[in-house]
């Protein structure tokens, strides 16, 4: 058997895959958060960053395909292992089992499934820009001027998008479940890959908790700050547009013209 078969056909091999792809996705989460936190700067900052990314299609598509592969492997091993685990006890206990197990550790698949559905929504919301899902209108109409160039107005899209209560709520719920997933998953990852002993285990658990709390706070303050009108409210008022608007409203062009200087 070649090495790929050996890994895929073994329960531990799949655990390694799950841990390694989970680690890669975690690294992406850190990078993505740092990018998004630029919302707390002036509009040009995050718009310029988004424009920079768009100008490097090879890099962006490379990263996207890599992430897609990680997500696919992570889910494929999660689901096949979950099936194996479900068949390993054909008859359930009458009493409640799972003695001594943390809640998060028992709900990795459900939290994972909510995370996937959130990711699908998030991509439709801010990447594909499906107008139907954001409760505002057609974000692809939003343009800002940057160095005399018309670029997508990511700042405007975020400040308008997170004024919608149910969108913010969904984002917050998804982040809470992601926190649960990572609080258990990041520590379990070290266990799966064999990096653990009695000295390091408490430290690993502490660091896993700290990293998941940091991501939870980081990802939650963005929609919250906007929803509470602490960030970008004036800007949103300036560019507010009617749903179904086909072209950017005059107010938008005027506002952008002023800022481009």
């Amino acid at each position, binding site marked *: 058997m070649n090495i790929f078969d050996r890994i895929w056909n073994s329960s531990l091999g799949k655990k390694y895959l799950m841990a390694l792809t989970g680690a890669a996705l975690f690294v992406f989460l850190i990078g993505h958060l740092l990018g998004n936190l630029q919302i707390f700067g002036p509009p040009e900052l995050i718009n310029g960053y988004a424009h920079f990314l768009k100008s490097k299609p090879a890099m962006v598509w490379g990263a996207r395909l890599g992430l897609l592969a990680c997500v696919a492997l992570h889910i494929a091993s999660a689901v096949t292992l979950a099936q194996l685990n479900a068949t390993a006890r054909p008859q359930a206990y009458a009493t409640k089992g*799972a003695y001594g197990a943390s809640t998060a550790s028992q709900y990795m698949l459900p939290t994972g499934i909510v995370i996937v559905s959130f990711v699908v929504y998030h991509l439709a919301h801010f990447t594909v820009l499906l107008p139907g899902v954001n409760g505002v209108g057609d974000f692809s109409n939003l343009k800002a001027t940057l160095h005399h160039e018309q670029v997508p107005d990511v700042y405007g899209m975020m400040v308008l998008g997170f004024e919608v209560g149910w969108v913010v709520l969904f984002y917050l719920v998804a982040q809470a479940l992601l926190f649960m997933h990572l609080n258990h998953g990041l520590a379990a990852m070290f266990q799966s890959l064999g990096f653990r002993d009695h000295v390091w285990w408490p430290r690993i658990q502490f660091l896993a908790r700290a990293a998941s709390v940091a991501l939870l706070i980081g990802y939650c303050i963005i929609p919250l700050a906007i929803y509470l009108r602490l960030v970008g409210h004036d800007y949103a008022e300036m560019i507010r547009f009617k749903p179904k608007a086909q072209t950017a409203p005059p107010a938008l062009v005027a506002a952008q013209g002023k800022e481009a200087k």
Partner: protein
Amino acid sequence: MKVTLKVWRQKNRNTPGSFKTYESPELNENMSFLEMLDVVNEQLANRGEEPIAFDHDCREGICGTCSLVIDGKPHGPHKGIATCQTYMRSFKNGDEIVVEPFRAKAFPLIKDLVCDRKSFDRIQQAGGFITVRTGAAPDANSIPVPKPDADLAMDAAQCIGCGACVAACKNASAMLFVSAKISHLGLVPQGQPERYKRAKAMVDQMDAEGFGACTVTGSCEAVCPKEISLDFIARMNRDYGVALLKGDPKAIKGGGAG
């Protein structure tokens, strides 16, 4: 004291089972849980009913034969002891106690509370041994073993192979047992020649027996009568990873000393 028992009764593997409720006779609170079952069985036998079948042997926590899931926890309410070391004083007069067999696909039921744990033996046979040395017995302590390694190996060697880890795990995973057996030999010099081969063979046998995979819930460690640590699972994962990367040894072509 008296208790009410709700016990799983099943004639054999192919007959569906169900819970039956029994009132115990007057008990001494210093009876062990198994002695309580003996007394209840005596009563059943006197009434002409089939006694409750349950596994037991040493009754002092060293053989790993006793089992039972008592009110949802393998080996009863306490930490670090087996069912045979559980005493009736841990329960209150009038308690209803639910007693179930260990449940896992790889531990098929034989009768009532007795299940077949031979899958553990097959995992042991797959690699839980060291190269045999023939000739005169070697001098004691002729092979130096660092003290921390010896201590860890002894911790792992505590495993009595009872299967409570499997019974407790929501995935019916045998990783704690297998990792204890792999580590106990893999930590000492005598176990080095087969270290990676052993890890591979025992884990593969574990998979073949139909046990689930680990999701690091920690239930196994929490119920283990010998308090085997999850650290050993990490050790097993490390050794198995090396074995996976190495693959099976290539057959040598041409034969002989080449």
